């Protein structure tokens, strides 16, 4: 059983009465423990595909199965609940709630899941230590660098014990050093915990690190390569 299975996926946007075929007949399977990047030029459909996998958008036709559950048929509130328990997200920027501390940001998702206070606190500290921010637990996002903020976002993404993490251009706003540091953490989590990461990116630093690269062009899969 694949972690993610996409069958004949199409997405057509109606942009001012002009139909834009963003994804065309996508068929794809991603297994548990993968460290994969979806790449391609701007407008190729990589973010749209990521949104479909993440249940943030609904397909025009086709199916998206996650752990054998067809998420394309779920209603809005069911999708939110599904994302809460199955998918972790890291976005390009403005990831964190600015009025909450690093600890509270990580804890927030577990609070939504109804995790007990003791367990929340324990796991939050563990995760912030794991991403190298054990000394920044009480810092607000504006007190952290861009790289540190993204590391908090990674900690939050895996706090909910998701089946996989979707990362949309996570290194786009980071300098090289911060980007490498963030990728080190993600790679380590993938290796040690078996956490599945799927990136949408055109950053070479990310592409060099991943083991599988799926290239999109004009909404179609142009290539699907396993790297050594």
């Amino acid at each position: 059983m694949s972690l993610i299975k996409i069958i004949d996926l199409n997405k057509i946007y109606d942009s001012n009465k002009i139909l834009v075929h963003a994804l065309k007949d996508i068929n794809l399977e991603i297994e548990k423990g993968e460290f994969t990047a979806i790449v391609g030029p701007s407008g190729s459909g990589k973010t749209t595909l990521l949104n479909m996998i993440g249940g943030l958008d609904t397909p025009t036709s086709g199916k998206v199965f996650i752990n054998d559950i067809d998420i394309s048929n779920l209603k809005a509130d069911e999708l939110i609940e599904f994302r809460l328990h199955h998918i972790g997200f890291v976005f390009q920027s403005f990831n964190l709630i600015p009025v909450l501390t690093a600890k509270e940001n990580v804890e927030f998702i577990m609070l939504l899941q109804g995790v007990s206070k003791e367990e929340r606190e324990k796991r939050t500290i563990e995760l912030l230590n794991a991403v190298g921010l054990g000394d920044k637990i009480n810092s607000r996002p504006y007190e952290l660098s861009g790289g540190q903020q993204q590391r908090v976002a990674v900690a939050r993404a895996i706090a909910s014990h998701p089946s996989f993490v979707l990362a949309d251009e996570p290194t786009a706003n980071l300098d090289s050093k911060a980007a490498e540091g963030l990728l080190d953490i993600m790679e380590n989590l993938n290796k040690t915990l078996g956490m599945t990461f799927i990136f949408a990116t055109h950053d070479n630093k990310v592409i060099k690190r991943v083991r599988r690269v799926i290239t999109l062009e004009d909404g179609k899969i142009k290539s699907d390569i396993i790297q050594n």
Partner: protein
Amino acid sequence: MIIKLAWKNIWRNKKRSLIIIFSALFGIWGGILTNGVSVGMWETTVKAAINREYAHIQIHHPAFKDEKLITQFISDYDEVEKILHGNSSIKSFSKRTVIEGMASSPTSVGGVKIIAIEPEKEKQVTSIHQKLIDGVYFSSNENEILIGQKLADRLKLKLNSKVVLSFQGLDYNLVASAFRVVGIFKTESKIFDETNVFIKRNDLTSILGETAPIHEFAIRVNSVELIDTTTGILKSQLKNLKVESWKELAPELSLTSEFLYLELNIFMGIILFALLFGISNTMLMSVFERIREFGVLMAIGMKRIRLFTLIILESVFLLFSGGLAGTLLGYLSIEILSKKGINLSIVEEGLAAYGMSAILYPTLPFHMYVSLFLMMMLTAIVASISPAMKAIRLKPAEAIRTYM
């Protein structure tokens, strides 16, 4: 954490939130103070009317109030006295003879209500003895009269002046007798001062040649809460007589009270309605600034009902931060002013025409604070519904791509 987050969110834009908070503070404070003054003005007027003439309850011959004939007296007043003595809610009562007559001085004449009282008993029911501005509250001499300042001015009378009272006797013949002015009173009501005179019942008995009839029992109960129940009990016990509480005796004052609270609630409603637009606008701006953040929150698993609650809570906190401070300030202001009073002697003449006191003691009953609290809650919720609906209708994928 939703509560904590909502509280923290309102302080993201301090200046904008403080404008709303201070608007609510001053609006609510001003509203409470204005309401307190209005209620105080009404209560002072009612208290003055009760202390001056009505007492809490009165008993009459059934036809007396309409015709006011000397012959329409309470014949079995001993029985009434027995019943009143037997009721533990009754603090004191006074028997009165009330006759419509004329008061004449060497220079003028005027129609008056002659109230013959037992001075010591009357003291326990009304406060006319405290309203004397000249002279004394009767002595042991015969044919003494207390008159109001306004009547004294009209008839050009002063202390020790003689005034002749003429009225119809029990045998329908005209009776006239001279009285000496021993006291001049001034109450809150000009009309009362011009149309009422007080004499002793003993003197009236001497003039009539028989025991002065009893037309009126004026009763004071132990507390205002007992007025309605005591009136009801007396009505059932004295079916042949007319028993009325002050509300029935002065329906204009009672009606004012019913409209007053409605009017004050409308007044507070208008203040809150104005605040509603400010809060709604602030919440809308706040939502538009956070579209991307709401997108992220929904993406990571925050249900729409939680997001809706978050925005409602922010609006409630915003209004209540200022509203509760304004309520507290309003309460404290009323507490201080209810003890010190507001001196309105500069417009005393005008107030006296309406039977109002020149010293005003603001007050606001607890139920007005409760209705204010509920109205504030309703305002906060209504103000945030539109912004909250906008937030929950966002599509996470589009919201995340929004750049503010």
